[in-house]
C-alpha cells in the first residue's frame, strides 16, 4: 500500500472511531447512573438507601423559606423541584448569589428526620442574562440576605 492510500485509510478510521464514539455517547444511558446531582424527588424515592450517603441534590430555593442566623452561622431553607420540597440545614454563609427562587446544588446527607444536612451549597445559574428590572440593584441582592436575618 502506498503512502497516500494508507493516509486515507487512517483518516477514514479516525473519523469512524470519533464519530462512533460521539454517536454512542449521545445514545447511551451511561449518564443515567453517573449523575452529578439528584432531584429531591429521586432522593426521597430511594427511601432508606438514600439516607446517610453523601449526595448532591438540586432544586430551587423555595419562597419565604430562607432563615439565616449570622451569629450561629446557621442557614436553613427549603428546596423544591416542583414535586418534592426538602428542608436543608447547613453552616456557613452561602455564595453571594444565593436568594429565593434561584437554583442550588447542595451537597450533604439526608438524615432520618428528613432534614438534609448540607456541607456545601453551590448556585446553579440558568442561561438567562438580563439587565436589572426597575428598582433592582444587581450585586446588592446578596446583602439582603444578611439584612433580612
Amino acid at each position, binding site marked *: 500500500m502506498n503512502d497516500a492510500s494508507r493516509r486515507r485509510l487512517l483518516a477514514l*478510521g479516525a473519523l469512524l*472511531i470519533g464519530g462512533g464514539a460521539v454517536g454512542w455517547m449521545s445514545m447511551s444511558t451511561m449518564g443515567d447512573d453517573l449523575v452529578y*446531582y439528584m432531584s429531591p424527588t429521586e432522593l426521597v424515592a430511594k427511601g432508606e438507601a438514600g439516607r446517610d450517603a453523601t449526595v448532591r441534590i438540586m432544586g430551587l430555593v423555595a419562597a419565604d423559606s430562607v432563615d439565616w442566623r449570622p451569629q450561629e452561622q446557621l442557614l436553613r431553607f427549603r428546596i423544591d423541584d416542583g414535586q418534592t420540597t426538602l428542608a436543608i440545614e447547613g453552616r456557613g454563609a452561602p455564595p453571594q*448569589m444565593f*436568594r429565593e427562587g434561584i437554583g442550588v446544588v447542595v451537597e450533604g446527607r439526608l438524615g432520618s428526620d428528613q432534614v438534609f444536612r448540607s456541607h456545601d451549597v453551590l448556585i446553579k445559574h440558568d442561561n438567562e442574562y438580563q439587565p436589572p428590572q426597575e428598582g433592582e440593584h444587581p450585586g446588592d441582592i446578596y446583602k439582603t440576605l444578611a439584612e433580612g436575618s
Partner: protein
Amino acid sequence: MELMRIKDLPITADLAGFAAVVGVIALGAVAWVARGGLTRRWEHLVGLLGLWMVIVGQYMGLVSSPRERMMGEVGRILYVHVPSAWLTMLTFTFTCAFATFFLFSGKRHWDHLVEATAEVGVVLSILLQATGMLFAKPTWGVFWDWDPRLVSTTVMMLSFMGVLTLRGLLDDVDRRATWTSVGSILATTSMIVTYFSVRWWRSIHQMQSSPDTVADPMVFVLRWNAFAFLFLTVWFVVQRARLSARREALDAPPALPEEVPA
C-alpha cells in the same frame, strides 16, 4: 430553569449558524491555500480589525453594557468567557477539518494549519478555563467542581495538548504530519462531547444561551466580541501556520552534496 438533563432540545438553529460560519471560513481557507496564501501578509488587516474590535468590544462589555440582574458586575466576564468558548470550539473544528484535508490530499500546507489551529485552540481553551474559574467562584461559589461540563472541557484541552506533545516527539516530517492529523480527528470527539455535555448530563453549568435567553443589548456586545475574537484568532492562526512552514523548511535535510570526484 432546567432541572433535568435535556437531550431533545432543538439544536437546528445553533447548528445552522455554526455551519454558516464554518462554511465561510473553510471556503476562505481553501481559496487562500489554493492561491499560495503564505506569500502575502494580508492577515495583518484582519488582525488590526480584530484588535480595534476587541478594544471597543471590551469597553462596551465593561462600561456601557448593562449589569446583569443576578450577577451584577461579575456578569461582565461573559464577554470574554463566551467568545473564548465559541472560538475554542470553532478553532478545534478547523483542526479536524484541516487534518482530514491533509490525510486525503497529503498537501503539507494543511499540516501547517493543523498545527496552527491546534496550538491556538489550546491557548483559547486555557483562556476559557481561566475565565470560567474566575466566573464560577463569585457566582456558583467554587472555582472548580467535578462536573460533566468542567471535566469534559478539561479533557478537550488535554487531548489537544496531547496531540501537540505527540507531534513534538516525532522527527520524521511525514509521520509527524500523519499522526498529528489522526490524533486531531480523534481529539475532536472530546470537543463535541464538551459542547453537548450540558444537554446530555446534569451539570452545574447552564446550557447554551441563545438570543431568546439573553437581553438584546447583551447579545449585541457578545456578537461584537465574538467577531473580534474570530478576527484575532484568524491572525494568530495564519501567523502560526507561517511559522510552522518556515520551521519545516529550516529542518529539511540539506540537498545531497554533488558527487565529489576523487
